[in-house]
């Protein structure tokens, strides 16, 4: 029993550490883009993302071993299963950050299509969403987790705004198309990161309340 608690705490800590690394990567991807800092973006591709792959496998193995060895029940089981899912979501966020960094590298070598306003806002929002979803996980705070889910629409709206704006640029000057496509790619990947953060929060709600709210389930209640 003591061992079970100690190991579960160890797994939680590993996941929190993982989330911190991912948050740092989002921040650097945005700074790299805004400050036209090639090295920040290149580092995400060459160092950070490969590290997140290693971490994912480590947490996955530890979590699987934990379940096999300790056969956790009730909330302990929900936490262990959700750690594995959140782990997987974080790794996917890492993949999206590589896409962002790649497009960033393309863009910083070229003249700006438009001032970057909405995309950094999206970046700030997704960092906040991940931070809060992990806080909600640590503190088993369902209310906070619900608030994270609500922020998803902020990011969706920003994404639509970016698209609309860039379409007008592209139609008026076809030379901007390729750069605009890269900006849309960045916005789209940020939007996916927001979705994955929402998943994390939905998992937290499952841990705390033991009910599934995703796909609109449970909202009808």
């Amino acid at each position, binding site marked *: *029993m003591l061992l079970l608690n100690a190991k579960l705490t*160890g797994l939680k800590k*590993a996941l929190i550490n993982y989330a911190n690394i991912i948050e740092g990567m989002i921040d650097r991807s945005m700074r790299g883009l805004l400050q036209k800092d090639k090295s920040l973006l290149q580092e995400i591709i060459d160092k950070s993302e490969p590290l997140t792959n290693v971490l994912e496998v480590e947490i996955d193995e*530890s979590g699987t071993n934990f379940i*096999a*060895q300790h*056969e956790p029940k009730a909330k302990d089981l929900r936490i262990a299963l959700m750690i594995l899912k959140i782990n997987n979501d974080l790794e996917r966020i890492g993949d999206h950050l590589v896409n962002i960094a790649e497009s960033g590298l393309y863009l910083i070598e070229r003249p700006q299509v438009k001032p970057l306003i909405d995309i950094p806002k999206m970046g700030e929002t997704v960092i906040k969403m991940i931070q809060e979803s992990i806080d909600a996980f640590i503190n088993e705070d369902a209310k906070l987790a619900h608030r994270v889910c609500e922020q998803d629409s902020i990011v969706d709206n920003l994404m639509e705004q970016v698209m609309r704006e860039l379409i007008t640029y592209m139609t008026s000057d076809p030379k901007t198309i390729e750069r605009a496509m890269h900006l849309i790619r960045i916005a789209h990947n940020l939007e996916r990161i927001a979705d994955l953060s929402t998943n994390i929060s939905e998992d937290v709600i499952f841990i705390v309340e033991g009910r599934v709210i995703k796909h609109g389930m449970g909202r009808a209640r």
Partner: protein
Amino acid sequence: MVEKTKYDTADICDLLSVQNLNLWFGDKQILKNINMNTPCKKLTAIIGPSGCGKSTLIRCFNRMNDLIAEARLQGIILIDGIDIHSGKMDIYELRMKVGMVFQKPNPFPKSILDNVLFGLKIKGGMNKDQMQHKVEKSLRDAWLWDEVKDRLHDNAFSLSGGQQQRLCIARALATDPEIILLDEPTSALDPQSTTKIEDLLVELKNNVTIIQVTHNIAQAARISDYIAFIYLGELVEFGLTEKLVTTPRDKRTEAYLTGKFG
């Protein structure tokens, strides 16, 4: 960061080394060419279906099978590199080094104090004060001291089953053993007492090597560092617990763990 796991067995020191061990009761071969090295200060669980030879195996480690007339043993058992049958270690020394705790708590029908003093008196070389001190330490290490410190002269049978088992562990600890063998130590206990003993064993392995027989797979998975799976007298598989319970190498281990036989 997740605690890094060691997947190789390079860290196994040969505290207890079993080499080509065969054992017969009369004509019946019970143990078949067992080879294993038991890691120092780890908890090794021996699992396997009833009657496969688990108890017989650990009884070899402190020469308990010597008492059985029809038992015949072949092979080598080394503790700290010393052959336990060689005469370089007499049987009393062996039993001080290798303590044993049985399935049913078996305190002596004496006071709590006398139970712990028992081995110390045989071992000798301690004055009264030192013995008193050792009794307290052993009872503390067995997580029993607070429950019995005011009633050391009560008969051991006045304790609950779980307390009696912890007393047996304290009795084994008193002679500073290097290895403690436990044969299904919790199978006669209620769930709470079982949890307490499990937590205790996890703590004790910081200082002593533990070899525990259990038919309870879940328990072996929970508390052991290594698992030895015995089937029909053969050591089928020996490995790190987390590896063995997630990805066993042998089909028979897989079948046993998934409840297909045994």
